[in-house]
């Protein structure tokens, strides 16, 4: 009961070379899978941060869409769109890596959907964006998925929700880490896990059909 619910990737015995490699991969992930979490609720931020760090992710929390855009270099401190469009690219060149954005939908000012659209229209467009909401509204869910959201989670978000996301996200993360050639990460295995993840979402037919094909992620 007091076990930390880390996502189970560590092999039990680590003597053979391939298991050693897997161990190294796990350590690399632990150091490098960086999630930008956006939520105006302090309570929710604290919980999400904990869920993500227990899941071996590096976490940065901000309390608004504006702050998220600032962090990504898409607006300056005065909330003007970056005068030079390459400011966000420079952030990326400087080594700023964001592997996943998780954002609340309902926030004062910029909604999670607005943030999604801004990210998808920028040089960070390859970063998956997961939207969280307490409202189980099919039209809202559809809107987000069609807007390019990687997934839609119902609040309160639980450890198991993030665990279900991870295999899908880590697969592309690993591939981009090892610079493999263009391979479609959506194998039949992934569609299986998609179906398993529908339990806590709105009842809607064939979610995998409406989910946008995952493009190969570049580690930015």
């Amino acid at each position, binding site marked *: 009961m*007091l076990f*930390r619910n880390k996502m189970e990737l560590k092999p039990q015995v680590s003597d053979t070379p391939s298991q050693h490699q897997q161990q190294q991969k796990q350590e690399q992930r632990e150091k490098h899978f960086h999630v930008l979490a956006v939520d105006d609720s*302090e309570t929710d931020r*604290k*919980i999400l941060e904990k869920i993500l760090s227990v899941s071996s992710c590096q976490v940065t929390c901000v309390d608004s869409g504006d702050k998220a855009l600032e962090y990504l270099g898409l607006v300056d401190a005065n909330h003007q769109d970056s005068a030079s469009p390459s400011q966000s690219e420079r952030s990326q060149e400087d080594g700023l890596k964001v592997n996943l954005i998780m954002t609340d939908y309902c926030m004062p000012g910029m909604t999670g959907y607005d943030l999604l659209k801004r990210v998808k229209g920028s040089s960070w467009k390859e970063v998956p964006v997961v939207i969280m909401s*307490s409202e189980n509204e099919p039209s809202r869910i559809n809107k987000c998925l069609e807007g390019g959201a990687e997934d839609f989670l119902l609040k*309160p978000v639980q450890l198991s929700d993030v665990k279900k996301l991870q295999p899908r996200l880590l697969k592309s993360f690993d591939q981009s880490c090892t610079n493999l050639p263009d391979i479609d990460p959506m194998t039949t295995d992934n569609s299986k896990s998609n179906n398993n993840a529908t339990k806590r979402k709105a009842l809607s037919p064939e979610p995998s059909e409406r989910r946008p094909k995952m493009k190969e992620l570049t580690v930015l």
Partner: protein
Amino acid sequence: MAYVGQLQRKFMDYTKSLYREGIVDEQFTQLHKLQDESNPDFVEEVVTLFFNDSERLLNELTNALEQQNVDFKKVDGYVHQFKGSSSSVGAQRVKDLCIAFRTLCELENKEACLRCLQQVKLEYASFQTKLESLFKLEKQIAEAHGTVPTLD
């Protein structure tokens, strides 16, 4: 030794009653899954954040409903926030009242909203008192060098 055992039993019984009475729900259990030896006060920290947030929201709600012309959208906004945070910590009864409250906001019924706010305040106060008692028990067990029984 017997003292620790007594405290632990008291803790378990008290925890069970909170679930039975619907004061807390499954989400409260989920929070405990995130707590471990490296962060043994996690649940208390989160709930404390919730307490602070709640106080603020209840004040805002009181002010907003005291206005001559109530801005129901604003009131609904606060209730939505409160519903969210109470849901996140597993404060089931508080959350359920917030859900009802939102309907009253939609109907723009000031009197009903005021009555509901009163209920929310009472329910929240009850939640706060009970959780504080629970945390106090945990501290007593720790001080007596016992381990806090985990929720199953």
